[in-house]
């Protein structure tokens, strides 16, 4: 049925392979666990996915611009350790801007090396992943940092608070998603990012400041990490030196699941949100069903491939690749 529709070019809905996969999967899970679709659980998953989600927004923009950012994981460790550590030392109203600035500096280094010097983004951000991890450890001396007075600080509102009954992390994530979606779809900067990612040469021939655009994508990515760090630090009220370890791949998986092409030039913020939610719901749903962690990994494997496959197949108009 789906197949024949795909073949026929299909209605618009079938082209949103990821959306189809998402819906199918949500239905399947809700049949298997009665708690899955409860309001509480949905809110809880939304809240949990905010940290990865906010980072994924930034990385989506980097990837549309034709690059990768694997340094977000250790950058998150850096930013969280910094904001939590400074919280008790200089107070949250100073800690936050200092941390944001420091994180933006790291983003600027990425942007300089990749945008201006044109070094390969995968390796640069891999190198930065290592460098930043080292910097965190040197900064903290390898010790965990904690906020002493967890109850009495307004810093708590970012990770634990709620406005009109909606958890702040969800509001932050949602707002950023909408803002970035608007930037990417309706503003010149978004067009420039698409162009640079799609064809850097042609972009330069069109007078687009390619270096500056790429530089900016890394600043945005760093900014997202800083926001994620505020949510994380406030939620946990403490930080380990390696809190963000491995997040880079989860973030990337979400971005890819959202259908953003690693080749650059195409992708969508809103679909990244879908990708983030999908990964979060898989994890949540399988725990609700009492499945062990390795089953979660196996299912994630299958879901990633099937969802992206549907997406690719829908765009191509046939299920299997025509390559012999």
């Amino acid at each position, binding site marked *: 049925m789906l197949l024949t529709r795909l073949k026929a*070019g299909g209605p618009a809905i079938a082209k949103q392979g990821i959306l189809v996969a998402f819906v199918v999967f949500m239905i399947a899970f809700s049949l298997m666990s009665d708690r899955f679709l409860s309001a509480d659980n949905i809110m809880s998953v939304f809240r949990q996915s905010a940290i990865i989600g906010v980072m994924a927004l930034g990385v989506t923009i980097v990837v549309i611009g034709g690059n990768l950012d694997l340094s977000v994981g250790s950058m998150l460790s850096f930013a969280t350790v910094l904001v939590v550590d400074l919280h008790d030392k200089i107070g949250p109203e100073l800690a936050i801007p200092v941390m944001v600035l420091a994180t933006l500096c790291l983003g600027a280094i990425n942007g300089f090396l990749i945008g201006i010097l044109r070094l390969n983004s995968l390796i640069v951000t891999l190198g930065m992943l290592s460098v930043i991890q080292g910097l965190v450890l040197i900064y903290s001396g390898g010790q965990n940092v904690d906020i002493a007075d967890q109850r009495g600080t307004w810093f708590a509102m970012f990770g634990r608070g709620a406005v009109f009954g909606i958890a702040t992390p969800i509001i932050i994530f949602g707002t950023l998603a909408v803002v970035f979606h608007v930037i990417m779809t*309706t503003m010149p900067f978004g067009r420039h990012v698409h162009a640079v990612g799609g064809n850097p040469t042609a972009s*330069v021939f069109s007078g*687009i400041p390619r270096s500056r655009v790429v530089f900016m994508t890394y600043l945005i990515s760093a900014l997202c990490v800083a926001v994620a760090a505020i949510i994380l630090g406030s939620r946990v009220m403490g930080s380990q030196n390696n809190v963000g370890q491995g997040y880079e791949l989860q973030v990337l998986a979400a971005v890819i699941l959202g259908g953003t092409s690693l080749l650059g030039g195409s992708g969508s913020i809103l679909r990244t949100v879908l990708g983030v939610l999908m990964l979060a719901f898989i994890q949540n749903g399988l725990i609700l069903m009492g499945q062990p962690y390795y089953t979660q990994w196996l299912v994630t494997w299958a879901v990633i491939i099937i969802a992206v496959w549907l997406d690719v197949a829908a765009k191509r*108009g046939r299920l299997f690749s*025509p390559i012999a």
Partner: protein
Amino acid sequence: MTASREPALRLQGIVKTFPGVRALDGVDFEVMPGEVHALLGENGAGKSTLMKVLAGMYQPDEGQIMIAGHPVQMTTPIEAKAQGVVLIHQELSLVPEMSAAENIYLGELPRKSFGRVDWATLEERANAILKRLKCSFRAEVTVANLSIANQQMVEIARALTVDARVVVFDEPTASLTDAEKVVLFDIINDLKARGVGIVYISHRMDEIFTLSDRITVLRDGAYRGTLTTAVTNEDEVTRLMIGRSLDLSRDEAAPNFGKTMLEVRNLTCPGLFENVSFTVRVGEVVGFYGLVGAGRTEIAEALFGLRKPDSGEIRVDGEAAEITSPRAAIALGISLVPENRKEQGLVLQMNCRDNMTLPQVQALTTGPFVAQGAELAIFDKYRDRLAIKTPSWKQSAAVLSGGNQQKIVIGKWLSMTPRVLIVDEPTRGIDVGSKSEIHQLLRELAAQGYAVIVISSEMPEVLRVSDRIIAMYHGRIMREFDIKDVTEDSLVQAISGISAEAVA
């Protein structure tokens, strides 16, 4: 060609649809052994699509393919090859990092024991083929280092590697020089003499009439008819193709040149061009004519801020200009329609409208947002003006036919309303109708007060659009002709360096 013989190839009722496009609508086509059958049609008429169906790259929705009287299924290029069908692609289909020899024998490298490549045999055979094609380079050279023309020759060389039944040439001459064309035609005649059926796609009427035995015309994916070359004429073909006759005359309204808009003095980029000086006035079209590799593109790149000249001066509208980037050039009112539309002109996965407005998107805003209405207006205007064939502005540029892609790029730079418009090979791969429209457009633009530079390797083109022609050879300006004084002979001499001594 006796009628009793089976056609080497027969396509019947081929239908192929893409989302939103019925690219082929029941096309019939046949080629006899030893026949050169030309396939004609406007940009986007479906010629390349038909040939890709034949070569197993696309699956037809309906219809039948028969090779030598037997129905066949072409599900992959491998099968097509096995059936003796060779397709020389419109867009180069080469691996740039590999040698010419490897590219020629791609997919069927000669083997020794243990699956090793038999390099000696490979290079011997490849060199023999290149020699037949009178190529000056050796088969060992890496393709990336070859000029576009030579890359085209490598592509053509593939036709000679297998015992082909049918060879399809899809616009093989788009980037060849006249000398190379002559060689190609010899090869085609040679194949023909050996009984190979040949499909020849081109937008150049002279070639069609020199080479072909029959002409089939497609229009909007539909079969329009087949003519015998010997008993038809260009006008009839053109009418079948675009539904009207072409006016190929040059409007002889007295040109009205204004002030000097662009002045270049002693511009030098060692190894590429040296001591180049010229001026372009408002209302004037200056044609740069030369062989491929003469350095014309490089001059354009320098004017557009893409290349740093060693010395020399550029003045725009009387003022010395420091052009360090395309951005700066655009700010000065310079537009460049680049030579290579796919690499330099388009963001392929981007839609047509966005491609067209890309250089000005930052200016086309209401508040912080892109004014999409204004964009659409621009797109509509140039789609109509250039007769761009696309189902909607949302279509991604990647799936447009080659000619329509070129038109998008031209539209993109025209919409900038520049003071100096540089077009590099503007009509490469464009159908006769649109070509004549573009020529007319360039003349009109000049009349409206643009200073226009046209770089072209086609003599009729420069002769038709230019007010002045600058002939280049090996990075130097050999001679400047006023259009009234130019003769074909003197032009040919100038660009082949024959008059070099005379001038120096």
